[in-house]
């Protein structure tokens, strides 16, 4: 899932790119949220455990169907809208072919968890049981359909991605249709979302912070071009191919900085120290051709294409919708109540009060509070009086943010 170690690498190399902000500070923004990721998280987190005793179970309705995700999605969306955020939920389409390896791994993990769960159940170890049953969670088609139905009834726009949801969310943000992509998946940065918002799903009480990552600042801080950043992500480990054994985040960044792209790295790599996966080693001619001219290599399917080139293609030319109908509509109160109370078995009173909140939030969003930065431009971090700044710099060195802050307004 995501890019291995990228979050840490960015926080080490480009700390400016990451900011912890209050959820509130995102008000007025449209955010494309990776629904599949959110559903998965709800299935794990929204559970009941019979007053703290025994194993925790997912919430279910009278028919025994899981409703954790509905509960989570419903409350979370209302909370976003109350904060003045306009959510768009993006659902996964079909998984890309190159991901099959990754998916296979995940299936194996799940089978392992299944076995471990059986062992734990026999032993009566509640903690282990909990752990493994959470690992077994799977967001299937039904869960996705349920949530889409719920969101449509709530009047929240739903976008069905042709392929991966995070790529679609990033594309919407890149096109300026939304402000940011909201997912935990660091992939979204590789797909060039200008802003990535993380930790959104569980930003509950107004105190808790969400994390924003700025793509441009991350590139600037790491001193990489877009293409180099994609190559870096592939080296770190993405969903689409294997990595070179023995190359960690630090080394990967060093190699990319030194050689510029994976092709050059492979030429210079010490074959004894590092093991390049077989799928990365096609006939060398092909590698060069595909790097210089990707169009050509597409038509030339007879020869195998190195896995990293395929992965790169996934990141750069992902199948996405460029237009999406992002309209927030009033919720359909009756149909929504029917769905939640009759089908999902929710408490009618709670549903009614939640829908009240939803309607109030929708109304408030009709004439939303604008943001200060919509009127006045953010000033670059330098004082108006440059000479003063120069004098100051040696004095305040080692005091980080104090230096740039020494400036006056206007």
């Amino acid at each position, binding site marked *: 899932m995501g890019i291995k170690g990228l979050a840490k690498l960015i926080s080490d190399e480009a700390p400016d790119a990451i900011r912890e902000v209050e959820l509130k500070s995102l008000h007025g923004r449209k955010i494309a949220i990776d629904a599949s990721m959110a559903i998965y998280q709800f299935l794990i987190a929204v559970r009941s455990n019979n007053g703290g005793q025994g194993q925790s179970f997912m919430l279910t309705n009278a028919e025994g169907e899981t409703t954790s995700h509905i509960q989570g999605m419903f409350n979370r969306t209302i909370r976003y809208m109350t904060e003045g955020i306009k959510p768009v939920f993006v659902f996964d389409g079909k998984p890309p072919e190159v991901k099959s390896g990754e998916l296979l791994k995940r299936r194996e993990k799940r089978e392992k968890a299944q076995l471990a769960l059986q062992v734990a159940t026999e032993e009566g170890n509640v903690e282990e049981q909990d752990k493994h049953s959470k690992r077994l969670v799977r967001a299937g088609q039904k869960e996705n359909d349920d949530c889409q139905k719920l969101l449509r009834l709530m009047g929240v726009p739903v976008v069905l991605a042709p392929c991966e949801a995070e790529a679609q969310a990033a594309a919407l943000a890149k096109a300026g249709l939304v402000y940011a992509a909201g997912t935990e998946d660091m992939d979204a940065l590789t797909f060039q979302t200008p802003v990535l918002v993380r930790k959104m799903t569980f930003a509950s009480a107004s105190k808790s912070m969400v994390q924003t990552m700025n793509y441009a600042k991350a590139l600037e801080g790491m001193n990489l071009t877009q293409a180099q950043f994609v190559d870096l992500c592939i080296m770190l480990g993405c969903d689409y191919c294997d990595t070179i054994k023995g190359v960690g985040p630090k080394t990967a960044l060093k190699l990319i900085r030194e050689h510029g792209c994976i092709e050059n790295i492979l030429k210079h790599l010490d074959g004894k120290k590092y093991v390049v996966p077989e799928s990365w080693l096609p006939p060398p001619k092909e590698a060069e051709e595909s790097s210089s001219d990707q169009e050509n290599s597409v038509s030339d399917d007879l020869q195998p294409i190195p896995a990293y080139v395929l992965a790169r293609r996934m990141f750069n030319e992902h199948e996405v919708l460029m237009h999406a109908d992002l309209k927030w509509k009033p919720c359909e109160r009756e149909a929504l109540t029917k769905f939640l109370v009759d089908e999902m078995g929710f408490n009618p009173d709670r549903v009614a009060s939640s829908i009240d909140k939803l309607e109030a939030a929708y109304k408030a969003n009709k004439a939303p509070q604008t943001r200060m930065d919509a009127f006045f431009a953010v000033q670059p971090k330098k004082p108006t009086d440059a000479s003063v700044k120069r004098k*100051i710099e040696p*004095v305040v060195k080692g005091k980080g943010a*104090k230096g740039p*802050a020494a*400036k006056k*307004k206007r």
Partner: protein
Amino acid sequence: MFEARLANGNIFKMIVESIRELVVDVNIDCSTEELSIQCMDSAHVALVSMSLSQSAFDHFRCDRSLSLGLNLPNVSKIFKMMGRDDTMVLKAEDSADKLMLMFENDKSGTIADFELKLMAIEAEQLGVPDTAYKCSISMPSSEFQRIVRDLQVMGDTCKISCTKEGLKFSATGQIGTGNILMRQNVASEKEEDHVTIDMEEPVELNFALRYLNFFTKATPLSPTVILKMSPGLPIVIEYPIEQLGHVKYYLAPKMEEDEEE
């Protein structure tokens, strides 16, 4: 070296009180000419800009401009210990990580001094252009405070419209609608009771009353308040501090969707 001595320390206390409900951490910027603050609330809806000229101080020395990062709740706690008539002295070294505060009372001869740890605060600064506004209204600050407080009963959004008739504040909520109209009024002998309306063209904007209410915390600083509005721009609410400075609040309006883009 930064050193400033303010005979009426209470002014500074009131400035802190006027900001602290809006923002938690602020940078106080010291330059050779003034003390100033620019900061936004966490939702980036309102902006505060404070300036206190060096001439407001009995003694003012600032060799190099510097920025003092302060946590306002803590500053406020310290100012609670200041007497009404105390003289306030602020001191900081150029590369200091703390601010010295002294409260001196001449009558009783007591001197209290405090050391406050400074913080590195990362905050975005906005460039606020000096624009000419279409409407400018001056009125008693206590009157503005009352209107804002009263209208909160009716709703959470206040429509402020400036027309030929005068300045109208309206709020609509579940219980109904309330309007308060102010006309030009220069009859009173005391100038600070005057209401003057200077209008080039009519303006009508919507604002969150909650924020307007935060701004009225500056009422003790000034007998008059100046409201400036232009269509589609944030309102400016200015509390002049004698001739020596000001606290200005900017508040982004609530606007219909398509205008926001």
